Each structure stands twice: as C-alpha cells, then as structure tokens.
C-alpha cells in the first residue's frame, strides 16, 4: 500500500497544564473518510487545528505527501508553501460558515476566489467554473450573484464545500459541518459530502460529536477523550461492537446511531 496522504505522529499540545492532545497518531489516504469523534473538550478541534498547520504542536509532527510525490513534514514547509497548499490541495469546511466564507461577496466570487488565487485571470472561465460547482452542490444558478448572508444555513455549508473543492483538493478537513442544521438539511448535506468524496476520491478528516454523521460518512473512526485517542478502527466495528468503556457509553448515549 502506498504511503498515506497525511499522517500524524505523536502530536501533543498542552494549554498550560491541560493536555489538549497527547501523543496522537493517525493517518488518512485518498478515497478514505476518517471521523474523529468525542465530546466537546475532548481535544478533537485542537487536533484538527494541529493537522491543518494552524497550531504548532509542542511535540510530534504532521507529514503530507505532496502532489509531486514527496512526503514532507508540515513544519518544514515555509509559510508561503503551507498557505499555497491550504488553498489549492486542501480544503477546510468550517462549522461556522462565516469563518469559511466571505459573507459580503457573492456566491460566485466566493467560489472563484481560490481560482483567482491560483492565478486564473479569465472572468468567463471563473464564472463558468463557479456556476458548475454551484450546480454540483445544488445551489441554483440564479443565486450566483447573491451573497451568502442571504443564504440559509444548509446553503452556506454547501457553498463552503463548492468554494473548497473548486481547485480539486486531495484532502478536506471538516469541523462539525452539519451541526446546527435541521435534520432534513443535514441529511442532504451528508449525502452530498458522501457522494463528492467518493466521486473525487478525496481524503476527508471530519470532526464531529454526532455518531450518526460518523457512521454515514466515515470508513474509519477515532474516538477521543481527554486529549487521547482511546479507540480506533473500522467505523461500523467501533460503533457496533465498541471495546472501550467510554466508547460504549458514547454509543449507548445516542438514541439511534
């Protein structure tokens, strides 16, 4: 099997005396969805920030297989290289769309920004791609010039996905992308994420507290508690036959996962 696309080795981060992440090892490769589940405060959001290079770990490292095939530690990339990676080869779908979108810029501008950031300077092509992607995330073409401030919560999340996927990234990080949405809206979004990640062969790391989301989307799962991964494995095995006491508690606390 080829080297994983992204791997973390012994990632550790403390805030004062509190360990937010302690010795985390994980990896993910193309076509694979990894869910990180746990309650709030378990360290899963810190972990996502460490993986994204937004936070520097106290120890440990994140390695990534670049497009040209070489695997490199994120810490060895310069700021410019890291940011270029983020806006071309990576996507990041935020829980709060206001952090992931430009709320005053039209939907088309939001999707086009990453293309323009990569040097695309042809308005017609940018707009064509924006319309294509709005269609793929099921936003009507007629809304292309409306700003996301006029969109519903579900549409904003779909727009975030289009904005991230337009440059053909290989890795997408998602932080609670469906929380705060109505159940029917959630289902539609989950279906979209599942379809696109399979079609495009994306590696996805999704942080969620919702085990149903993890079950529907992910192949593998890592259960976090107090900064540690306490159980990891096949998603359906961990959820249907949990080994660790805490995982059993999590699974049994859900009405229908």
């Amino acid at each position, binding site marked *: 099997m080829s080297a994983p696309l992204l791997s973390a080795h012994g990632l550790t981060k403390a805030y004062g005396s509190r360990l937010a992440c302690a010795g985390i090892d994980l990896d993910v490769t193309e076509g694979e969805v990894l869910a990180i589940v746990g309650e709030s405060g378990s360290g899963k959001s810190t972990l996502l920030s460490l993986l994204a290079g937004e936070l520097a770990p106290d120890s440990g490292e994140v390695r990534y297989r670049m497009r040209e095939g070489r695997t490199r530690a994120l810490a060895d990339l310069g700021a*410019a290289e890291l940011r270029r990676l983020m806006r071309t080869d990576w996507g990041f779908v935020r829980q709060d769309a206001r952090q992931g979108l430009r709320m005053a810029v039209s939907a088309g501008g939001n999707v086009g920004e990453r293309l323009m*950031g990569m040097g695309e300077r042809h*308005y017609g092509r940018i707009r064509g791609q924006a319309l294509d992607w709005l269609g793929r995330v099921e936003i009507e073409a007629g809304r292309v010039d409306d700003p996301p401030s006029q969109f519903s919560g579900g549409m904003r999340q779909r727009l975030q996905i289009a904005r991230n996927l337009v440059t053909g990234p290989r890795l997408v990080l998602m932080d609670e992308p469906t929380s705060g949405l109505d159940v029917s809206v959630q289902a539609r979004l989950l279906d979209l994420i599942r379809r696109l990640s399979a079609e495009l062969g994306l590696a996805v790391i999704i942080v969620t507290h919702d085990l149903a989301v993890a079950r529907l989307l992910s192949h593998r799962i890592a259960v976090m508690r107090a900064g540690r991964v306490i159980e990891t494995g096949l998603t359906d095995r961990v959820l249907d036959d949990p080994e660790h006491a805490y995982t059993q508690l999590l699974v049994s606390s859900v009405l229908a996962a």
Partner: protein
Amino acid sequence: MSAAIAQRPEREPGYNFAYLDEGTKRMIRRAILKAIAVPGYQVPFASREMPMPYGWGTGGVQVTAAILGRSDVLKVIDQGADDTTNAVSIRRFFARTSGVATTTRTAEATIIQTRHRIPETPLSEGQVLVYQVPIPEPLRFLEPRETETRQLHALAEYGAMHVKLYEDISRHGHIATTYAYPVEVAGRYVMDPSPTPKFDNPKMDDCPALQLFGAGRERRIYAVPPYTRVRSLDFEDHPFRVQEFTQPCALCGASGHYLDEVVTDDSGGRMFICSDTDICETRVAEAAR
C-alpha cells in the same frame, strides 16, 4: 525663473524649515528610502500631529516636508486644481514655514503634492509627485485584520484582490471601479494608487518622476521609483480600460484630458472642463495669443 513662479516668500520666524524638526524628517526619509527600495510596499512610519486635521493631507505634507530643499519649487493640487481650499492652504503652509518658491505650472515644479489627480502634462526626470493617501491598504475592503493583510502582501496572495473586480463585473457587466483602482507594482506588490481616477493609472507606468505616497492617519509611506512597471489589475476577457469622454473640454477644447462636470446654473445647465486647471489655463492663454 519663469514668471509663473510666485515670488519667493519670506519664511516666518519661529518654525524649523518646513515645520518638522530635523530628527522627524530623517525618520521619514528613512521610511521613504525603504519604500523606494521595495516598490509598492507599505512602510510604517511614526506619523506626527500636523497643524491640520487628518483627511487634509497630513501624510502627503509630512513626506513633502521631509524631502523639501531650499531650491525646490513646489506645486500643490487638489482634484487637479491649484486654487481649491486644500491646495491653497497647503501651499501657503509651506510658503510660510520654508520660504521655498511655489508654482502652478507642472513643468516648472520640482515637487508636486497632489490629492486625487496626476497632472496631464507628462512628468519628467527629477520631479517628485507626492500623493495624499486616505486608506493605503488595497485589501482592506475584504480583510479588516491588519495582521492578515500583511501576510497576504508578504506571500503575494492577491487572489482576493481580483474578487473585487469579479464582483464588479458580475454586478455591472464591466469593471465599475473608477478610482483607487488597484495596481501591481514592479510585478510584486499590489498597491492602492490613492483615490485618483483610473484615467490616471497609465501615467504611473514607466513614469520618469519619483512617486511617493503618504498616509498620515494610517501611518504608511509607499513609493514607485522612476521608470517602474505599474500594471492595473484586470481579467483577460475584461481588460483594463480608462474612462473616455465624448466631448472635449468646454474651455480649452482639449480632448484626451480628464474632465470634471460643472453645474453652471440653477436650471440644469452644465459643462465639462479639464480637471487639471494648469494645463487648461495654459491652453486658453495660448489660444488667446
């Protein structure tokens, strides 16, 4: 010296030459030198309180004060005119505090301080054009955080800059930004040319004169050295274009100049005349001869 140059005025006692103390001028000159060395890059400087409110050109005034020498000839324009309040008071300020000669003639000036225009008369080597700048950061409308805009400049991430132009086209069918139109300097930094009409953007490119930009409230100085490539941002299928006027100047008959609309009476009468008063008056006088 030509007749158009005003009499060399008396400097008022009690002020250091050009108002600022020599230490402050040295500090500003250092910022200017750095700005020239890194074209288009915004250099922070310790902007001083000036005896005029922000928004009246305190940035430009400090730059002018720092570079002004006794043999300089100063021209000050506001929206192209030498005779508006802002231009008159700044010109008088320097006349009183430095005693240097002043002029309204573009060709005779060594330093031209300007608000919102570049003179129609082509500038030449040895001249310095000093712009008054209200908001130096071209990315500000998209990104309110200074730490983030500095990162974007440092890494030359200017995709967001084109988002503004994209928004224009999607809304209006063409790039509707008509002033403060962003430019890329020397193939590197994106710069706000101050609220000049985009009509003037081509004049910045490969200009023989030195162009200095001062923002007093925002405490930034930036520069375009002589003969530097200045390119207006655009799209391949929506190339940069300057405004075109359908009629010539109603006073001097010039075409190819930037025109202001002037309301002439209470019944809707109006005319279009050169915004650059110096070139307009010169042409009118020549025509009368």
